[in-house]
């Protein structure tokens, strides 16, 4: 028998008894070994994080959700003989200073001081949104307990949300007393005036909207034609030279064309004037809490209701109508009222464009790093650099985007394609395209890292199977590796969306604005206008919270807009997660 087989076949030599290590004597297992303290520690940390996140969310949801609920409007008679009416926004206790009593009549001061003294020098005060800015000069007023003579809820007290006209801005609180048409009183008394208002209001609003449409779209269209006409002449001038025969001919044609357009311009102007004149005839007369009579054009009134007399259902209707306006309307009154539709739209368009840019780029870069590049010093360096890119402050990306995309890239495009519009920049300024690309750059590391991990997780056996079938490397990547890695790539995209949609700082530099006159996608050719600046929910929050002239009125909008932004990001994420799960079921399901 050969030694090899002998070795294998022979019975094993008798084993030496295994030497056991001496165990250390202990009375009981140590606390550390039990691990319970660490479970508590980990659980506590987790609970703290959860508490903070949920607390923040709860605050936003509560404040954002409650903002639009119509609250009662008490009419407060003050001891100094004046009266205010308005929604109570906040209540707090404070210590009145000595000067606080000077607003009271002489006789009431001692009584008020005694009242405060009984409560250890403290008094309640409420912030009343008194509105009627054109008469009071303020939007809000603090009213202390000791100033109040009586409070009552007037069932006819009407809240009016209106469009600004001159100094008249913000909300108006008053009781309807009469209805005037063309200078003559048509109805008198609250009920009759209100009925007349309800009947006429939709027509006035329709006229107003028609006038608005004429003055934006139609006038805009004529303006665009005038501008096109000018540009045509200018283009000929640039091509042929100033005052050459061709230029002069073009100029003559242009003057002719412009005359027709200006005629049209005048016609539209007359139509608008007629509509406005008709609207000016319809007036609602209201009496404020302190007895002032105010006349208001029906067309200026966006929404009017009597909260004190409203049933729960009626309040719900007002609540929903406000939400509807918020979601679909344009902002008004310096963004502190109205809707955020342009901002929602801008955010979505920007996020989608960003995803469109970042995913292909990130995936290609990751494919190269993982599948093609020879692993080595260079690849590791690139990988570290990419990871570090994620730590660069986002404002730096904004600066880079402004410098590179707007001023270098965009300016070159302008010179090549839009020379006749210069010096007005087309692409050479912030716009939704540049903002998307800037954010794409910002979120690139996220996508690259996620994609690389997904690629690495594709089983080698699948690749080998594909090669064994005679597939080339690219076919294998395209048909096996990428589909299989798709759920992981989607994860990267989800993270990128979450990161990108909430980013504000870089956007301020590359195209987000307070009010965008036009959406980035609309009905005029070529439908997508990537050069236009846009509104963004994140920037809107900043603008409302810190740039608003009426910041107290804008505050509730900060919450609702934040709520909106969070909901939007959740929505985008849910959509992406849904797609990912479908892909995952398709590409990775099965036993094992």
């Amino acid at each position, binding site marked *: 028998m050969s030694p090899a087989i002998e070795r294998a076949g022979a019975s094993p030599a008798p084993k030496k008894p295994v030497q056991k290590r001496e165990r250390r004597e202990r009375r009981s297992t140590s606390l550390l070994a039990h691990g319970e303290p660490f479970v508590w520690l980990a659980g506590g940390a987790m609970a703290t994080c959860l508490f903070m996140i949920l607390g923040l969310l709860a605050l936003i949801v509560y404040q954002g959700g409650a903002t639009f609920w119509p609250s009662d409007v008490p009419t407060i008679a003050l001891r100094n003989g004046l009266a205010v009416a308005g929604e109570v926004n906040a209540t707090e206790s404070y210590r009145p200073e000595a000067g606080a009593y000077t607003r009271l009549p002489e006789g009431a001061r001692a009584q008020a001081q005694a009242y405060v003294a009984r409560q250890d020098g403290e008094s309640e005060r409420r912030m009343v949104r008194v509105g009627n800015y054109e008469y009071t000069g303020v939007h809000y007023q603090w009213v202390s307990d000791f100033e109040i003579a009586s409070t009552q809820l007037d069932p006819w007290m009407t809240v009016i949300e209106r469009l600004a006209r001159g100094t008249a801005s913000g909300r108006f609180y008053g009781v309807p007393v009469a209805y005037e048409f063309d200078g003559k009183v048509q109805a008198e008394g609250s009920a009759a005036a209100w009925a007349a208002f309800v009947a006429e209001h939709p027509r006035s609003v329709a006229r107003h909207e028609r006038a608005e449409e004429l003055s934006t779209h139609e006038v805009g269209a004529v303006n665009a034609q005038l501008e096109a006409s000018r540009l045509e002449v200018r283009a000929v001038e640039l091509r042929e030279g100033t005052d050459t025969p061709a230029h002069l001919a073009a100029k003559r044609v242009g003057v002719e064309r412009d005359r027709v357009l200006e005629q049209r311009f005048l016609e539209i102007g007359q139509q608008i004037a007629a509509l406005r004149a008709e609207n000016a005839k319809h007036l609602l007369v209201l009496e404020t809490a302190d007895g002032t009579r105010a006349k208001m054009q029906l067309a200026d009134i966006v929404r009017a209701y009597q909260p004190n007399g409203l049933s729960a259902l009626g309040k719900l209707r007002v609540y929903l109508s406000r939400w509807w306006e918020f979601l679909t309307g344009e902002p008004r009154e310096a963004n502190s009222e109205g809707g955020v539709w342009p901002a929602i739209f801008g955010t979505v368009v920007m996020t989608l464009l960003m995803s469109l840019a970042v995913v292909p780029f990130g995936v290609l870069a990751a494919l190269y790093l993982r599948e093609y590049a020879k692993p080595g010093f260079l690849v590791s360096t690139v990988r570290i650099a990419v990871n570090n890119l994620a730590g660069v402050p986002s404002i730096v990306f904004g600066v880079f985007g402004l410098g590179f995309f707007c001023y270098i890239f965009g300016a070159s495009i302008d010179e090549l394609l839009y020379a006749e519009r210069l010096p007005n920049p087309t692409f050479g300024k912030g716009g939704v395209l540049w903002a998307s690309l800037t954010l794409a750059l910002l979120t690139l590391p996220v996508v690259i890292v996620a994609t690389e991990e997904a690629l690495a997780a594709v089983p080698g056996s699948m690749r080998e*199977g*594909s090669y064994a079938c*005679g597939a080339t490397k690219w076919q294998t990547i395209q*048909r096996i590796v990428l589909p299989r890695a798709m759920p992981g790539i989607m994860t990267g995209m989800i993270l990128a969306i979450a990161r990108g949609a909430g980013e504000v700082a870089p956007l301020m530099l590359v195209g987000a604005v307070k009010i965008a006159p036009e959406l980035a996608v609309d009905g005029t050719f070529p439908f997508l206008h990537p050069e236009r600046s846009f509104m963004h929910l994140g920037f809107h929050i900043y603008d409302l919270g810190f740039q608003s002239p009426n910041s107290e009125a804008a505050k509730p909008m900060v919450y609702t807009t934040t709520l909106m932004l969070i909901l939007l990001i959740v929505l985008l994420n849910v959509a992406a997660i849904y797609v990912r799960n479908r892909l995952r079921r398709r*590409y*990775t399901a099965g036993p094992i």
Partner: protein
Amino acid sequence: MTTNATEHIGQPNEKAGGVFEKIARSEAFRSEVHESVFKDDAVLEIKNFRLWYGQKQALHSISMPVPRGKVTALIGPSGCGKSTLLRSVNRLNDLVDSVRIEGDMALNGDSIYDAGVDVIELRKRIGMVFQKPNPFPMSIYENVVYSLRIDGERDKRVLDEVCEKSLRGASLWDEVKDRLQESALAMSGGQQQRLCIARAIAAEPEVLLLDEPCSALDPIATGRIEDLIEELKGSYSVLIVTHNMQQASRASDYCAFMYLGRLIEYGATDTIFLAPRLRETEDYVTGRFG
């Protein structure tokens, strides 16, 4: 017939031993290749093939013909290089950076390792099934017609026909004909393995390489695959790696015993199992070894 192999003929060393000692001493030795394997025309000719993983030699001068239309089994202890040899036939080892080879193989007379060989085209002529089922992340249908798809075949009729024929060939058709568009990853392990076989035969390869196709399967699924191999015989030339001696004796016509990267003995399966020329082979097939 190769000159290399004819040398062995007429040197019967009745139950000779000592081969493993020779290997241990790194002495030259000759593979015991029976004359019977040259009876049939060879579809694949392995010629003095050597392979290194980095510094380590994994295959030592392997020379053997693989007969056309027959099932040839590769047996041997774990780590002896069976998979390596199989993967060398369709040049899958090219994907491993550290691999270096010498010698050559010929598929129907065409060299496999010549400088000018188009590896992609070569692999299309060779089907391979792996130890662990590796269905692709796509539908059953797309899995089967994968090799046609990468060739750019678009004609639905051709694809349907090939799909049905291959699935029938892998005796899977009846089980999956109603769910061809479902994900292949939702099938059982045995079904997946038969799907991989269907995928391999869809391209009508000249040689079918099976690397322990039954190792992850239960006895029933194993039985089905063995029946399948039986059916494939004749229309395909099969080279199969197996650790299961019964399977080798049942399913194969020829059998090659490998050890430490060398071909030890190669002949008709009956002879290898009943009357091997080398003692080492006898010990291995009867289970007295290792």
